[in-house]
Structure formats: structure tokens, C-alpha cells
């Protein structure tokens, strides 16, 4: 009877999880759907608590209380700009949980005199291996995103050889523990090497490539949960782990495509390090046209259609609210404002949308690249705020450019372009942007927030 109750709670939870994720296809239904998923989680927890193998509830109670104490601030107080490192850190936690469950299971079986079967060892091995890699990798990713570690790629001579050796070492130890399950040293050594490998894997990856890495590690942590399910024979872990793994997999593919890179290129390429050599076109002999706040305000005030292209620079300057104010002013004067969001704008998939939504920009004004690109031809002004590489026409025209082939927003098709930028420094990819030298482009130099606030003030006076 009790077992039926447990299975029923798991089945309910699985269904609610899938419904919850499906609700995320509709912004207006998503909140409700995720609340259902949370209810599903509660069912699963209650179902587990009545499991007959649980005999002592003291540690459980303490763990649950501590978890709530740590989890609440992670949910309620983390600012939206810090979302990428927060997600990376929660991947660390979920991979840590999976790894520790694996170790506990292995330790329990050995200490009670059971020799784990081959099948169990395969599951435990993958669980602990993927878990440790994810813990190491996400810690570095979180450190880089928080800028506690340098966000520049860290490379050294022979790096690929070292990583290759580590990887082979992990595989060898994995096979060894599967063949001889009682060799505990090999099991724990594999865990340690996998942790180091995770760190080494993310160190050479630059800040701009982080979205792909975080998504990829998300898929590893999902697979680690899956393996946990296989190891302890629990179906709901397998189901949830697959959902998690599929999500990470899809997102990392989408991100790679948006950056025109292959997986292997992201993981082994160490982008920023080589681009200083591959300069593409140089800026020598070209001049930019600088514009004042007054002139820019007049252009915007009389525009029929303004397309705003926000980049991470906008978030850094905390200018989202000023952008929204500007958009409302232009609309009040009869113009139309749309936001063009490139898939890799921000530091993680969909990050820019969240930042704009937080500033009360309605989501029906936020457009994906594919939806908006054809509209640039009839736009009077393309307003580029703190974005650079995603509007660089070299991606279409210049075969020698490192970003050649990357899908970009067609800002250069607009009748005029205003670029808000702090100075003439190059973007993340370290390459010159022809758009800035175009005769239809004017540059409004200065802090994005100050410029936008200035524009708002000027438009009111027009």
C-alpha cells in the first residue's frame, strides 16, 4: 500500500513537471504552470518521506531547514543582473547533491559487505564522474561571471594535451572501478580527477562564451541526476534528469548556432586569445561621426519606427529603466518602438529579456532576431545600446573576420543608426566594427544611462 502511494506521488510529480515546462511556451500561462510543478515537487518529497528505508528523521529535518534558509535568499534577493552566476551556482549545488548521493550509495554498499553489480557501478561511475565535472566547471564559471576570477581565457602551452590526459585518466579509472568495484581508491581518484578536469575545461573559456558553457554544464548535471536514478533504481530521478539534460542540450546548441561556433570550438577554442592576431579590417584611416544629445533626441522624436538593440553594456550601466522611459516618450509622440534581442545578448540564454521585463518593458515589444530582422529596412532609427559584435556587418561580408558567418541583427539596414557607447574600444571578440564607420551611423559617446537620461530630457523639450 505504502509503495503504491510512493509511486503515485512520483507519477503525479513527473506529469506536473512536464506540464510546468510546457507552460513555459506561453508567457501568460508560465507562472501558473510552474506553480503546478512546485506542487509536484512537494508530492515527490512527501512520497519519499514515507519510504520505509528512512528510519531517522533528525538529519533530514535539519537539512531541510538549512536548505530553506540558504535557498530563500538565492531565490528572493539575487538581482536579475547576477542571474547567470546564480544559475551556475545552483548547477553546482544540484551536481554536488547528485555526486554525494552517489558516494553515499557506494560507501553504504561496500561497508555493508555488498559488492555492487557491474550495472550499478556503471551508473554510480557516470553519476560521480559527471557530477564532479559539473561541480568543478560550474564553480569556475560562477567565479568568472561574478568576476572573482578573470573572465579572460586562461591558456598555457600544452593545455589541450593536459586536458586530454585528464580525460583519458578519468575513462581509465571509470573502467577500472566497473571491472573491480571493490577498488575504492580508484572510485575516489576518479571523482578527484573529474573535479580537476571540470575546472580545467572552463578556465580557457572567455566571458562571452559563458552562455554555451553554462547550458552545457546544465545538461551534464541533468545526466548526473539521471545516473543517480539508475544507481538507486528511482524512476522520477531518471525522468527529471532527462528533462534537465534535454533543456541544457537544446540551449547549448542554440547558443552555439547563434555564435556560429561548433561545440568543440567553444570548448577547445579559447576564443579571445587568438583574435588579437586576426584583426580583420583595421580602423586606420576611417573616422566616426560623433553626435550630441540634442541632435540624437530630434532624430528619435520624429522617427516612425525605432528599433532598440540592447547589449550587455546596457545592463552594466543599469540603463534598462532609462531605455523604457525613452521608449514610452517616443511612443507618446506617435512613433513605434521595438526591441531586437540577439540570442547571445547578455550573459546567458534569454538574459536580456529578463532584464528588460524587470524594467517593465512589455514582452510583446521584445522580438527575437528572426522576427525583427526584416523590419530594419523600414526602421528610421536603430538605437544600439552597449551592443557591438551582434551588429557587426563583418559577420556577413568579411571572410577573414573571426565572427564571419555569425547571425547578426541587421542594424545597418536602418535609415540611420545611433550607437551609444562609452568609447571606441572593441567588443568581446576584440574586432573592429564597420557599422561604427558607416556614413549613416552617429556615435553618442558617454555612459549609456547618462546619455539615455539626457535623451529623455531633450525629447520632452522637442
Amino acid at each position: 500500500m505504502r509503495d503504491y502511494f510512493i509511486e503515485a506521488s512520483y507519477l503525479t510529480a513527473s506529469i506536473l513537471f512536464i506540464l510546468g515546462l510546457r507552460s513555459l511556451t506561453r508567457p501568460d500561462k508560465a507562472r501558473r504552470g510552474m506553480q503546478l510543478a512546485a506542487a509536484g515537487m512537494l508530492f515527490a518529497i512527501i512520497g519519499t518521506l514515507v519510504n520505509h528505508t528512512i528510519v531517522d528523521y533528525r538529519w533530514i529535518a535539519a537539512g531541510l531547514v538549512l536548505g530553506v534558509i540558504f535557498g530563500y535568499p538565492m531565490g528572493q534577493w539575487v538581482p536579475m543582473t547576477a542571474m547567470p552566476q546564480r544559475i551556475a551556482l545552483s548547477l553546482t549545488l544540484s551536481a554536488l547533491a547528485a555526486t554525494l548521493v552517489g558516494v553515499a550509495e557506494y560507501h553504504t554498499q561496500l561497508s555493508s559487505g555488498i559488492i555492487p553489480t557491474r550495472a550499478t557501478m556503471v551508473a554510480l561511475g557516470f553519476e560521480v564522474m559527471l557530477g564532479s565535472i559539473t561541480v568543478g566547471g560550474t564553480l569556475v564559471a560562477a567565479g568568472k561571471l561574478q568576476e572573482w576570477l578573470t573572465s579572460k581565457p586562461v591558456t598555457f602551452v600544452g593545455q589541450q594535451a593536459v586536458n586530454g590526459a585528464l580525460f583519458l585518466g578519468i575513462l581509465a579509472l571509470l573502467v577500472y572501478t566497473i571491472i573491480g568495484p571493490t577498488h575504492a581508491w580508484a572510485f575516489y581518484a576518479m571523482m578527484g580527477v573529474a573535479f580537476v578536469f571540470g575546472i580545467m575545461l572552463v578556465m580557457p573559456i572567455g566571458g562571452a562564451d559563458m552562455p554555451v558553457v553554462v547550458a552545457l554544464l546544465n545538461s551534464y548535471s541533468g545526466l548526473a541526476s539521471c545516473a543517480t536514478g539508475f544507481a538507486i533504481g528511482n524512476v522520477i530521478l531518471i525522468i527529471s534528469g532527462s528533462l534537465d539534460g534535454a533543456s541544457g542540450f537544446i540551449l547549448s546548441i542554440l547558443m552555439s548556432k547563434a555564435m556560429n561556433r561548433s561545440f568543440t570550438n567553444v570548448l577547445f577554442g579559447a576564443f579571445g586569445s587568438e583574435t588579437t592576431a586576426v584583426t580583420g579590417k583595421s580602423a586606420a584611416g576611417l573616422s566616426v561621426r560623433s553626435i550630441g544629445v540634442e541632435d540624437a533626441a530630434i532624430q528619435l522624436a520624429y522617427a516612425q519606427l525605432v528599433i532598440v538593440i540592447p547589449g550587455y553594456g546596457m545592463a552594466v550601466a543599469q540603463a534598462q529603466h532609462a531605455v523604457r522611459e525613452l521608449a514610452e516618450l517616443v511612443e507618446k509622440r506617435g512613433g513605434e518602438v521595438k526591441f531586437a534581442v540577439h540570442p547571445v545578448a547578455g550573459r546567458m540564454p534569454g538574459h536580456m529579456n529578463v532584464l528588460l521585463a524587470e524594467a517593465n518593458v512589455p514582452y510583446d515589444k521584445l522580438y527575437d532576431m528572426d522576427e525583427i530582422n526584416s523590419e530594419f529596412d523600414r526602421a528610421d532609427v536603430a538605437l544600439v545600446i552597449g551592443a557591438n559584435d551582434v551588429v557587426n556587418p563583418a559577420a556577413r561580408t568579411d571572410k577573414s573576420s573571426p565572427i564571419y558567418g555569425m547571425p547578426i541583427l541587421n542594424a545597418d539596414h536602418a535609415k540611420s543608426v545611433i550607437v551609444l557607447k562609452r568609447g571606441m574600444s572593441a567588443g568581446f571578440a576584440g574586432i573592429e566594427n564597420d557599422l561604427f564607420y558607416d556614413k549613416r551611423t552617429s556615435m553618442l559617446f558617454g555612459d549609456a544611462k547618462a546619455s539615455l537620461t539626457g535623451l529623455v530630457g531633450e525629447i520632452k523639450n522637442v
Partner: protein
Amino acid sequence: MQLLELYVFVLAAFVGYMVISRVPPLLHTPLMAATNAISGISLVGSLIAAGAAHDRVSTILGFIAVVAATSNIVGGFLITDRMLRMFKRDAKPGAPTAEKK
């Protein structure tokens, strides 16, 4: 039993792929937060490790796992809700009402 679990894995991965590939880029960050919260389901395994009272080591490891998984669940669902709450339609009259893909 192991083979049955393999079926579950393959089918669940398939369902996950079908469902998640339809999530628009607009909601990709909430999606990541949501799958993070759901991955807190490893709490199920952690609870058993922490409460089975096999020996001290397993209990302590299980306890740490319970803390980690619970903070993911609580933090993950809270932050997902916080984000989704921010996504609003244009409330002004005359705004385009056509459904966006």
C-alpha cells in the same frame, strides 16, 4: 528492471526535447531556472541517504546533499516565479493584441 529504466530514460529525454524545443528565447532564462529547480529532485535520493541510518559517513553526505538540493528547490522555484511575474503584456489601449509566436 534496468532495461525498463532505460526505456523510461529514452522516452523522457524524447518528451523533454519535444517540449523544451518549443520554449521561445524570450523565456530561456526562466527555463534554465525552472529546470534547476526541478533538478532539485535529487533531494529524493538525498533524503534516503540521510535517513537510512546505515552509518555516519553516508548520513553526513546525505545531509549535505539534502541541504544542497533543498536550497535549489526553494531558490529555484522562487526565482522562476519572480522572473515570470515580471513578464507583462502591454496594458495600454490600442496595443497590438495579436498573439506572438
